[in-house]
């Protein structure tokens, strides 16, 4: 996984200001100069009497990435990589109609040049040669794609036509680098020691702790005049463990910590405690009774509420466009559940939601989802998404969609068909009416009593981002496809408790949500408890499945606990494989 898009933490929110191709400390930046020089030449591309590009863009993620993992006191993997990942986009046609938003927009036609990795060093001749050949191929493909698209639209009746690309003011933002120093030996030692904590839990059948640290710069230049260079830093710690219940049900728990820089992650004692907690949770889950199907009120504690909103809103607040296709060729395309809902009520009227990537601090904590400029060079501003429960705005990129013709600077993930995908930065969920946690629990039990339910349900933690393995994820998706209900995979609860009228809590296992969609948000009846800021890495995959994509965006959701009047959960009937035939091997007393 190669994280990207980190915001320079300690610098005050930078304004776009003009700067030359020089670093703020006066040093020349050979990579930036080479990008600009080749960009100028790219304007002159022309095949025979066909059109020149009307837009060319070069982006480069220049980074160093460290990854290490350990299990039960043993180092499993450790590597450092230096990478430069280029991204070259060429548009032909015009802002109104170009080679994007078409089913074949991502295809490359023609034989590629034998290009290898982008040069890692500041060597103008080698860098420009790479760009020269790559741009040539992308331009020629763009021409073919545009010709094909033009032919396709002649045979289609199109609805209301939207431009293909929104104009945007070019921004110049050249910020100083902020490279993290790697300490591989020290980090490997920490991982060995932290992973050894799980040796005390014989219930755990597999486990791992890992660090992922990346540091570098993001470059973006385009023919409109944008010149961007911003630091990108992400530091991530994860512990994940698996266990098996007596009936063979696979169980999993995990904890993830994020910061922009390693030194801002929690210290070793707190990480150690998190590892132990995962062990404790699994121990409790192995002994926990199977849950029953449930239809009734559910209280999401603040962390789980934030996770739920991240999962539901994250994928639905950015709208994409169905690409133009050919007659008789369906395009696999998932619409947003909020499509067409601008101006309608999607939440109770006492809830507002604001996305503010320019905010840096909240309650003394550095916000993880802050960023100065998006992937398309657009500066984001504070955006009111929901006001008094009504959907006022959605996350926009430079791909015009119905209801959002201009970008509002939320292009944060690479998308398909020549467009980019939107993600929020810091999402603040604000409830005008707030109770305390105790009051919410009381309310939950009252609702249960009204419905003659013997117990209510409290969800403490969701599997979001999901740390399911590839095989587990496929099983989940297959189950959902068979079971009817919503076809979208929603994160399952990792920690869910029955709450009885006497206040007693009982952990249960095996629950999954059924039919939990954006529509369900209207069933929120109360909010309360101290809000938490939940940080995560969005990657565009269902349940933000970790490892599903190399490109990620840093996000944060600040939310209080939420009480839903009615949520449906089920414990699917499943045949689990028998427990391992041979008992687990012993662990030696000392490492």
């Amino acid at each position: 996984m190669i994280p990207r898009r980190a915001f320079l933490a300690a610098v005050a929110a930078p304004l776009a200001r003009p700067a030359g191709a020089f670093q703020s400390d006066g040093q020349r930046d050979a990579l930036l100069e080479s990008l600009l020089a080749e960009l100028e030449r790219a304007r002159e591309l022309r095949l025979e009497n066909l059109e020149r590009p009307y837009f060319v863009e070069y982006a480069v993620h220049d980074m160093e990435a460290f990854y290490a993992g350990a299990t039960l006191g043993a180092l499993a993997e450790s590597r450092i990589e230096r990478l430069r990942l280029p991204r070259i986009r060429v548009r032909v046609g015009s802002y109104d109609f170009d080679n994007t938003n078409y089913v074949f927009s991502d295809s490359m036609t023609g034989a590629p040049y034998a290009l290898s990795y982008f040069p890692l060093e500041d060597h103008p001749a080698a860098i420009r040669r790479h760009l020269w050949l790559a741009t040539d191929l992308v331009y020629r493909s763009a021409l073919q794609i545009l010709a094909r698209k033009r032919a396709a639209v002649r045979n289609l009746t199109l609805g209301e036509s939207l431009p293909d690309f929104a104009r945007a003011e070019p921004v110049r933002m050249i910020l100083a680098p902020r490279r993290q120093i790697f300490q591989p030996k020290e980090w490997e030692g920490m991982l060995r020691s932290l992973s050894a904590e799980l040796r005390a839990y014989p219930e755990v059948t597999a486990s791992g702790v890992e660090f992922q640290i990346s540091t570098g710069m993001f470059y973006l230049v385009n023919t409109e005049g944008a010149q961007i260079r911003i630091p990108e830093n992400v530091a991530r710690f994860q512990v994940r463990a698996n266990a098996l219940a007596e009936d063979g049900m696979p169980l999993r728990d995990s904890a993830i910590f994020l910061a922009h820089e390693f030194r801002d992650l929690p210290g070793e004692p707190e990480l150690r405690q998190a590892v132990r907690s995962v062990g404790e949770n699994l121990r409790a889950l192995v002994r926990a009774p199977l849950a029953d199907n449930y239809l009734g009120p559910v209280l999401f504690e603040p962390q789980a509420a934030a996770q739920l909103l991240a999962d539901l809103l994250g994928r639905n607040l950015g709208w994409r466009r169905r690409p133009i296709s050919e007659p008789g060729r369906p395009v696999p395309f998932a619409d947003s559940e909020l499509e067409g809902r601008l101006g309608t009520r999607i939440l109770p009227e006492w809830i507002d939601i604001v996305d503010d990537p320019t905010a840096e601090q909240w309650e003394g904590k550095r916000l993880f989802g802050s960023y100065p400029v998006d992937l398309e060079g657009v500066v984001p501003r504070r955006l009111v998404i929901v006001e008094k429960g009504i959907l006022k705005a959605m996350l926009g990129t430079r791909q015009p969609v119905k209801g959002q013709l201009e970008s509002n600077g939320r292009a944060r993930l690479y998308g398909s068909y020549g467009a980019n995908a939107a993600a929020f930065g810091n999402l603040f969920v604000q409830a005008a009416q707030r109770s305390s946690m105790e009051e919410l629990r009381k309310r939950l039990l009252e609702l249960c009593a009204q419905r003659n339910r013997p117990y209510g349900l409290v969800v403490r933690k969701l599997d979001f981002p999901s740390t399911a393995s590839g095989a587990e994820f496929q099983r989940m998706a297959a189950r959902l496809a068979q079971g009817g209900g919503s076809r979208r995979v929603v994160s399952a609860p990792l920690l869910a408790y029955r709450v009885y009228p006497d206040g007693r809590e009982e952990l249960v296992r095996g629950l999954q949500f059924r039919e939990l969609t954006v529509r369900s948000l209207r069933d929120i009846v109360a909010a309360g408890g101290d809000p938490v800021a939940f940080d995560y890495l969005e990657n565009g995959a269902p349940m933000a499945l970790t490892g599903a994509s190399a490109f990620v965006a840093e996000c944060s959701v600040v939310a209080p606990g939420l009480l839903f009047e009615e949520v449906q959960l089920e414990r699917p009937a499943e045949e689990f494989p028998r427990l391992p035939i041979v008992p687990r091997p012993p662990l030696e007393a000392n490492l």
Partner: protein
Amino acid sequence: MAYEVTEEQGCTVAATLGALQVSRCQQNRVLDVTVRVGSLQLDNYHRMPGERPVFTSAARLPLDDVPGAIRQIVWLETDRVYRSAAERLIRLKTSTQVRAAGEEQAADFTEEKPSVFAGAPKPFSFPKELWEERVKRWSAAFGASSGILTSQVSIGARREVKYLVNTEGTRLVHGRNYSRIVISASTRSSDGMDLNLSENLDSEDASGLPSDKVVLATVERVARQLEALRTAPVAEPFVGPAILSGKAAGVFFHEIFGHRVEGHRQKDESEGQTFTKSLGQQVLPSFLSVIFDPTRRRAAGVDLNGSYLYDDEGVAARRVPVVEMGVLKTFLMSRSPLPQVPRSNGHGRRQSGYEVVSRQSNLIVESSKTVSESALREMLRQEIRRQKKPYGLYFEQVTGGFTQTRRGGLQAFAVIPLVVYRVYADGRPDELVRGVEIVGTPLASFGKVLATSDRPEVFNGFCGAESGNVPVAAVSPALLVSEIETQRKETSTDRPPLLPPPPAGGGS
């Protein structure tokens, strides 16, 4: 049951025009679990038509030697593989009863004696900064060539250790070091033909790699040849005599002959089975012998890439004469027997994550009809005159192609020529041509070898097939073939880059 752990440590450094592109090192340990249930006659590995069962999944093991951590992963992986094996056996048993018995059935597994050996290869040593400086300097030597589009020089060094234990008592630790310098470049002619050249220099130990002088000379040769190719005339379709250089002949043998003597293909009805019924028969001219010898470490002054002490089933490597004086004697065998060849001969190989099948090792062509290279040339000229052809061909360099051995597909092979010359009978200098493709049917080509040179050359490479990538080599003298058929390579409709190249100095 068997556990094989492949432990790999390696670094790669690559540069273009003096700029680093890659510089990384990695280490990993991977476990392949084998569980066999049933009997030697019928076990869970029995193949059904169209099916190739895979049970192992290359599970990662910790790098640290912490027994508890390692055992936990081995435990779960074994459980998973066992279940998978048991399930398949049940399915096979019901299905084999239903299917009609084919020709005499071979068993699924052989009996072999266990092997015990412990000999780890030399420790890994790779001074990264030193290699970065060298590779950058070598790659910069391409800078003088204006006709080349892309170029690269890289070095890869690896140390591989294999651990193998099984329930028969085999206990093995063995492995090798391996390093390779690759020099490659590409360009595109004005009519849109992509041209690539690549040369590799191999050595077991990085200290055995050629000197600066040799590497730079190779860079210069690749650059010069590629620039000449770019403006060379396009080849015409041709049928006539040719010489294949030793290296080209090695590839030729590996592709059109070697794959067809792999044991597992003789058991598979969907394969062409060209030689299945040819044991004891003449399959090559009687002056040619073909030996597969993984115990041979060096030939013609070069370390061989297909060397090993034990195969991936723990069977000791040995010299296997597959063809003796033109007569087919045996096949390359893993522990999956044939009715005619009931034991392994140490050629059961695989890449981690795949199941073992019989694969090639060091293919060695021996000839009893050798002449000097200049005499071979003269023989070519005579043959050109005799056949009344305008010219003959000389294949100096080829790269491994693909072979179609399956029934239903064309029984054709395609070895990809890179550097080919027209040779004239009247003593005119050789003329470089581009866009040549060899075609032909395998059996027909063999009968047409007239003579060989007296100087073998080595082709080191990697072969990808059903059990993944394995390192191989081919050693062969140059061959004179009375008839080879070539066609013109399919040209693309592409063209060279639209803009001129950026300034060599990098400035605007």
